[in-house]
């Protein structure tokens, strides 16, 4: 305003002076200057008013809701107080105050009360210090299982804000309340599970029970959030006892291996036995067939030869015998004929048996 006045005064000396009535001209110029500066001020005021009103516009994102507090009290009741995504207008502060509440995005809290002490740097670098002899309750977290064993477990809860007014106006720090509920649920669930169930046998059951407990607590404490899901990040035995627990795992695997070996043996024995049984019965069946066949064949021959025999038994036997001798003698390896001595005494015969050894099977050297 001062500047305007000075500016409008500045060109005054440049104006051609009017010597007749210098006071009159001066006052007129002053009035002129005042009027023009007043216009500028008025304009500035209007601009200010418009800016003031425009500053009341604000946008709400798709993942949040907003509540307008007029003189500290929410505008509208219950659900109506919540403004959805889009452009909105409120009076500027101090009349109205806009409170934004994240709603659709999933938030999470992690419970580490069941985990041993790690500094954030150690956590990031994966470089954990070796465990001590014992656990100091002041720093190291752990859980006590139903059978009074110590385990470590950390879990994460994913949740959405369901009742924004309750979440924001009911609690100083609702996410802290959610985390405490999760801590309690973890402790409670661990106290219901035996160590082997928690770590190995019933991981899914542990997770389900945990989620059930934390959902119940959240509903009971009316935290205004809805549980999306729970995740068990890790469950381990105390690091001090890693070897002992690994030993059990090895033993469990060994047991399976030993049982598998036994089953392999079982199969082998049974297959071999069934092969052997088949061989035995087949052999018997073959024997049977051979016996019956040979007897039948003999009988047939007997029947065929009987009429011829009956014609002249002596001749028949003679012919048959000679026939057989002929075929037998051709097959013989050595035939030695020993005529009787003239004096009718029997000859003395000396035999030296030096049989040719049986031919070795092919493949081995015929050395020996």
């Amino acid at each position: 305003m001062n500047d305007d006045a000075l500016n409008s005064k500045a060109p005054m000396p440049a104006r051609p002076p009017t010597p007749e009535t210098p006071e009159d001209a001066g006052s007129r110029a002053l009035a002129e200057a005042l009027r023009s500066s007043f216009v500028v001020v008025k304009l500035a005021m209007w601009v200010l008013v418009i800016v003031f009103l425009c500053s009341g516009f604000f946008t709400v994102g798709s993942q949040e809701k907003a509540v307008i507090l007029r003189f500290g009290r929410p505008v509208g009741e219950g659900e109506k107080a919540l403004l959805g995504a889009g452009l909105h207008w409120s009076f500027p502060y101090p009349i109205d105050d806009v409170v934004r509440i994240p709603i659709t995005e999933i938030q999470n809290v992690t419970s580490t009360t069941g985990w041993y002490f790690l500094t954030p740097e150690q956590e990031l670098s994966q470089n954990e210090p070796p465990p001590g002899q014992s656990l100091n309750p002041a720093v190291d977290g752990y859980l006590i299982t139903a059978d009074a064993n110590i385990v470590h477990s950390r879990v994460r809860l994913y949740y959405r804000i369901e009742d924004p007014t309750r979440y924001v106006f009911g609690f100083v720090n609702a996410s802290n309340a959610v985390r405490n509920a999760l801590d309690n649920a973890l402790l409670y669930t661990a106290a219901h599970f035996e160590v082997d169930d928690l770590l190995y046998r019933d991981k899914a059951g542990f997770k389900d029970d945990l989620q059930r407990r934390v959902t119940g607590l959240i509903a009971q404490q009316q935290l205004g959030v809805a549980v999306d899901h729970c995740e068990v990040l890790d469950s381990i035995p105390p690091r001090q006892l890693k070897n002992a627990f690994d030993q059990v795992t090895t033993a469990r695997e060994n047991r399976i291996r030993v049982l598998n070996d036994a089953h392999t043996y079982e199969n082998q024995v049974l297959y071999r036995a069934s092969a052997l049984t088949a061989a035995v019965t087949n052999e018997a069946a073959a024997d049977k067939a051979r016996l019956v066949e040979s007897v039948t064949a003999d009988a047939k021959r007997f029947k065929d030869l009987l009429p011829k025999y009956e014609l002249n038994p002596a001749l028949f036997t003679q012919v048959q015998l000679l026939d057989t001798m002929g075929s037998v003698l051709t097959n013989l390896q050595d035939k030695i004929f020993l005529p009787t001595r003239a004096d009718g005494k029997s000859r003395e015969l000396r035999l030296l048996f030096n049989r040719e050894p049986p031919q070795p099977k092919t493949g081995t050297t015929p050395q020996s």
Partner: protein
Amino acid sequence: MKRNLMILLGGALLVLLVASMLFVFQVRQSEVAVVTTFNRLTRSVGPGPHFKWPWPVEKVYKIDERIQILQDQFTEDLTGDNFNLLTTAYVGWSITNAIEFFPKFREGSIPAAQRMLEGILRSSKSSVVGRHLLSDFVNPNPQGLKFDAIENEMEQLVQSQLMTNNCGIQISFLGIKRLGLPESVTEAVFRRMTSERNLLSKGLEDQGESEAAKIRSAANRQAAEMLADAQAEATRIRGEGEAAAAKILPTFQQNPQLANFLLRIDSLEQILKDRSTLILDEGTPPFDLFRGSLTNSPAH
């Protein structure tokens, strides 16, 4: 004239603004304000704009009515069966009566209230833990576990203490956050756990061995049974064959001499089938042909 009106309006607005800053205060949703007149508590008001006399006549203190969470430190207490047990708990508490609350703590100081609450919590925990056995906290049998009951007892005890203290505070929920054992005890627990693990792994190995042995012997037995069955079956089959052969035998009865002769001829053939040496004399046909015709009688 018009300009004067404008100036007047502007002035009035300015005065109104300054006056509202001096005479009006706002209370937000979830807050309650306590007003003191010359340092004497006079009234409390809820959310909305309110009138007050400017300082130094009246002073406004705002108090958060929302639920706050208090977590305490580990405290070590003796259970009913003389075990040392460490517990931490959390409490959701809120100020429900600002008029009662405000004068109890210096100018409604929240930390002071928390200190008091922590003290109450500690004594409540101690007395409730002392009433219970260790097996009420950890127990493999779900019926023996009294977790909820313990938490309820603590909550009721804290609640009743607050009621008697009459300080305008209420708790909405209470839960145990952590359970712990004294550090030296954890070492003993580790020793016990190690021995339990050893027992378990030994048991698993032995169990595996014995089951495997059972499987093997069962297999052997079954194989032996199968073989015995098969041998019985084979004997039966052979018997059948012999019976069938026996049926044919009467044929040979028609002429036993011939049957005998044929059998002997067959066996002769069988015996001399392969690699045999036979020494013969003139008595054996057909060499009887040589009898008398060969003269290898001695020379003299």
